[in-house]
């Protein structure tokens, strides 16, 4: 039990943060903080929180706002390529095209739109560290009103062309893109290397998210 339990404790705020931080992606979109990774993350946070806390928005509008933000601030192609791991070269051009659009939908519909409750959490940017000329890691904390201890969030940024883009996010020690890569390759491997299996699983999950939407989660509080 301790093993399992401690894992649960660690990942407890994970999805919330994932959603928030993905939301943050979208937020940072117009950030012209080309050279300052901290300012970039800050701007993303501001925009994401604006989307989350906009009570007037319909779910559809929120979804579209998130999608725009994601496109503008995340290096989606790199994330999608990374998530394929050793299977990067296996899909046909048609499969690849579908995979890329499914991944975007997966992130927007399955992760981000789950984020419905915003309670005045704040994102505090703490420090930035460079890796070569083109990558940076920005450390930050989500702070909660009331006594709850803060949650650490690290942002792995990659400079591409005009400015920084988000490549991966680490929430309490867990890299989200690495988790996706592990899960995606597991699905392909378990179906004997059949790339279509991954597409099917992605479609099914997106479908579930569209139909079931927040049922089950809403029940809890």
């Amino acid at each position, binding site marked *: *039990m*301790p*093993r*399992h*339990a*401690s*894992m*649960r*404790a*660690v*990942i*407890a*705020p*994970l*999805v*919330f943060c*994932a959603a928030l931080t993905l939301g943050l992606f979208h937020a940072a979109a117009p950030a012209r903080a080309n050279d300052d990774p901290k300012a970039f993350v800050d701007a993303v946070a501001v925009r994401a929180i604006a989307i989350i806390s906009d009570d007037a928005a319909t779910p559809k509008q929120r979804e579209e706002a998130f999608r725009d933000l994601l496109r503008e601030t995340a290096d989606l*192609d*790199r994330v*999608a*390529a*990374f998530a394929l*791991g*050793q299977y*990067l*070269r296996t899909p046909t051009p048609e499969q*690849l095209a579908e995979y*890329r659009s499914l991944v975007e939908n*997966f992130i927007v519909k*399955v*992760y981000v739109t*789950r984020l419905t409750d915003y309670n005045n959490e704040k994102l505090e940017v703490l420090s930035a560290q460079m*890796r*070569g000329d*083109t*990558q940076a*890691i920005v450390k930050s904390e989500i702070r909660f009103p009331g006594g709850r201890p803060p949650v*650490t969030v690290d942002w792995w940024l*990659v400079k591409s062309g005009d400015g920084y883009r988000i490549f991966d996010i680490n929430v309490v*020690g*867990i*890299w989200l893109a*690495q*988790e996706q890569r*592990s*899960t995606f*390759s*597991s*699905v392909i*491997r*378990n179906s004997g290397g059949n790339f279509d299996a*991954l597409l099917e*699983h992605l479609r099914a*999950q997106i479908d*579930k998210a569209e139909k*079931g939407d927040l049922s*089950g*989660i809403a029940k*809890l*509080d």
Partner: protein
Amino acid sequence: MRFRTGRTARPRLLAGIAAITMLVAGGVALAGDDGENDPLEPMNRYFFELNKFFDTILLKPVATWYDGVVPEPGRDGVRNFLDNLRSPVILANDLLQGEWDRAGTTASRFGVNTTVGVLGLFDPASNWGMKQHSEDFGQTLATWGTGEGPYLFLPVLGPAPPRDLTGFVVDSAFDPLTYIYWDRPKTVPVTRFVVNGVDQRARSLKTFDQIERTSIDFYATVRNLYRQSRASEIANGQYNFDTLPDINDLTFDTNEPNTPGMRP
């Protein structure tokens, strides 16, 4: 006499199971290895589904009830009390890892919370700058250079690869409660185990649902989350930028104009 043997047999049984699974898992791992180091995946998936089933019919309903009926201060008291009870195990592992500062923190926390904190029901030490941290013998083994070994998922225990399963058994030898209740009825240790499980589950109701919903393969996701969170715990929350994967030239058509190593 008969009863005594029956009771004392349990820790030995656990140790025996650990030893056997290590042998079995180790042997299979030699036989074949894929990217995930999960040679017993079919069996693990079976136990995973089994645990999920018991979670659905038992643990989750109880945890949901607990979450709804017991007010938050009460649940926090339970959590603090259980955490405080674990201090000797954490202290032993702090020391074995040579983390003297953290060992001092653990000892002070235990002293403060057991007295000022009313037998551990409150956690005043946190407010005095002595934050809680966790250690276990699996982490200690890792800091000594022991690898995790092939993935293993067990009924009730959940993810328990050989290194961490061994840690679980050794930790119970560090726990004074093991000796206090060595040849007495196991009501207290069992209650502690169950309440701990219910409380942990109650704290992750929403999270677990969401992780399941956001995963295209829940088993594989849990496996990876377990490994990443363990790695992070072992490193006490630190990581080295240089050990992260190289993604600089990663694109869908790396083969075409920008082959790695051919950068301008």
